[in-house]
């Protein structure tokens, strides 16, 4: 039996349903219009990313600037002191050492990572057995958390129990321990070695990706014209790889200049502050000593340097694209 409550009023339902369908059509078309609008869609898609950046990058950055202009200590909001924290930092000899250490460390580590990463990428670009396994294993130093690998290296450089000293001594190559971490100069070079070891795979894999976009025809043509391996690299590979290389170098400079974990674990800034970087010293002052304003000012010294490096490199990259 049919339900009169429903079927008896069929006409009325149809009469009401018709405008509803029309309204839905209007809604759908509005929604479609909204989705079709690139401006609105872009805004909708960008909003979460911008919100995250604002919350986790912009807000701490603005707070760091504010802190650097105040005498804030842990548990004490302090007062506005203008540029006093920056002036104090500029007159601080430990900061001066940390700054020059940071430049030295970044420069050499980046050079080594670039040269060795390029060499590794060229090797990995060839065909050989177990190519994929070898390529994947190259990423291991980059995948392992820095703290863990830095601890392992610290043990290998240990002043008393260094496995390298042990091997060299028992191999008859040294008569006294090498001062890996107990001499300022040695410790800095050890830190550069570890940073290179850790960062080289990133260079290698990225450059390898760049190498694979270069058509083999170009190399074949150059070879037919009598170009040797070096000339093929210098006149074919290198110019085509330069844009990728510049991007990798920019990333690497940013990461190396602001490095913290590796030095904190490996040397703690010692011996005698010889390996302090801006980040480790800022941490020592801001967090360990509770001088948040001074620590913020110290860390902000990294910003103009990194900004300048990135700006110059990106400008150069843009000029190359125009060409």
């Amino acid at each position, binding site marked *: 039996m049919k339900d009169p409550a429903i079927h008896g009023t069929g006409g009325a339902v149809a009469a009401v349903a018709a405008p509803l369908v029309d309204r839905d059509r209007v809604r759908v078309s509005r929604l479609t219009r909204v989705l079709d609008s690139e401006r609105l869609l872009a805004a909708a898609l960008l909003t979460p990313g911008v919100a995250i950046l604002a919350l986790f990058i912009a807000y701490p950055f603005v707070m760091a600037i504010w802190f650097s202009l105040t005498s804030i*200590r*842990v*548990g*004490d909001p302090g007062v506005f002191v203008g540029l006093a924290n920056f002036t*104090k930092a500029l*007159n*601080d*000899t*430990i900061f001066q050492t940390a700054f020059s250490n940071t430049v030295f460390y970044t420069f050499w580590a980046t050079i080594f990572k670039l040269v060795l990463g390029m060499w590794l990428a060229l090797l990995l670009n060839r065909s050989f057995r177990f190519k994929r396994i070898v390529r994947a294993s190259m990423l291991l130093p980059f995948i392992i958390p820095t703290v863990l690998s830095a601890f392992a290296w610290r043990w290998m450089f*240990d*002043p*008393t*129990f260094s496995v390298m000293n042990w091997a060299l001594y028992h191999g008859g190559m040294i008569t006294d*321990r090498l*001062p*890996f*971490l*107990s*001499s*300022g100069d040695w*410790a800095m070079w050890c830190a550069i070695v570890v940073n290179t070891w850790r960062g080289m795979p990133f260079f290698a894999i990225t450059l390898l990706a760049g190498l694979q976009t270069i058509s083999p025809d170009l190399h074949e043509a150059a070879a037919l014209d009598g170009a040797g391996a070096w000339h093929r690299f210098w006149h074919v590979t290198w110019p085509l790889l330069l844009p990728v290389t510049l991007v990798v170098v920019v990333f690497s400079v940013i990461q190396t200049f602001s490095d913290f974990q590796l030095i904190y674990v490996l*040397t*703690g*800034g*010692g*011996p*005698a*502050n*010889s390996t302090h970087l801006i980040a480790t010293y800022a*941490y*020592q*002052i*801001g*967090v*360990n*000593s*509770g*001088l*948040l304003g001074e620590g913020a000012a110290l860390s902000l010294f990294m910003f103009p340097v990194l900004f300048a490096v990135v700006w110059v490199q990106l400008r150069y990259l843009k000029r190359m694209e125009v060409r």
Partner: protein
Amino acid sequence: MRRRKFLKAVGAGVAATGIEGILTAQRAPAFAQANTVHILRWNDFVPAADKVLREVFAPEVQKALGLKLNVETVNANDLPARATAAIQSGSGPDIILLLNNYPHLYASAGVDVSALADEVSKAQGGIYEPAARLNKIGGKWVSMPWSLVPALIAYRKSWFDEVGAKEFPKTWQQYHEVGRKLKAAKRPIGQTLGNTFGDAPTFTYPLLWSFGGQEVDAKGKVMLDSKETLESVRFMVQFWKDAHDEGGLAWDDSNNNRSFLSGDISATLNGASIYVAALNGADKFKTEKGEPLHTDILHAPLPAGPKGAHGYHTAHNHMVMKYSKNTKGAIEFLRWAHKQENLEKWMVVQKGYAVGTARAWEKHKMWADNGPVMAPFKVAAAGQSRLMGFAGQPDKKAAEAWNKYIVTVMYAQACSGKMKAEETVKWAAGELGKIYT
């Protein structure tokens, strides 16, 4: 029902449920809160002590006070970072272990525990004066002294005997002579001059004082650049070269423990953790003759210089944090823990590595059990007379200098050859001058 009557009736109902009180206090009622006390401490160099906190204190406190004790331990070097983060964010552990004069750095974040300190001091023969100076600021106890870790020289008796030192050297000069012979026998002295919180400053500050050097005068004027300081640095440079394992420039607080236990060094300034580890691992740590290593270890205070003998012993203090939602429970826990019958359970397993901050602990029966090897630890803390920032106060400025390792780096720069003695002293005085402005 009229509106006025309705509101009255609802008001009475709310009051009956206690919601009014909750709304006024803006906090959940006590019975609804988990009565938990979260304490943050270091990873003890005597692991058995952490075990007591977790396996003995926690259940007993639960039974006695109805408190759930949550013990968290981290590397000592990470304690300041945790404290800073907790204070700035206004949330974190209810009690934080603060070493040395850190209570001065975080004074505004600590709950007044004067009543507890006075009570413990009265009951236990008086809290040592240096411990009071580290925790009492402006007449108010901002934190509660818990223990002291005396720093004494652990040395290999037989090796010292072999080079003619039948007793431990009384002066730095004698120690230098003995050390020269020991290093010639490939048994150097081990000492860290690295950027580390414990063994480095507990060596360098007393060394400075024993030659008559001081950071500042009583009014806070920097006095470091003096002939006494220079003399101490010159002495240390030669002493380092002649008698020490020069790898010590890169050591942290654990390297000397490992080096001593493995037989690589003959002596080192340390807490008693080396001896305790040798004692607990008698089968593992042996002398070259196969005897248990602990039978060949003795302890002695740092030698005397021209201006006497000094020592610095790492202070451990508990701060009840103002941001805590359970300050009452935290203080009650400390009151319970400081009772001698409770604290001794923790103190006994330390075997003298950590000692009490009040005089009563010098008379505790555990010292008879610990034996003569540990006897110097019994009174070491009581004999301490100087603190960082001498001859001024162990205040925030002294803490900043301590955290920048200025005094330690002064010696390290000279010993590593990075700077001449005169240069490093001037450098250190200059750095102190920027703090004490």
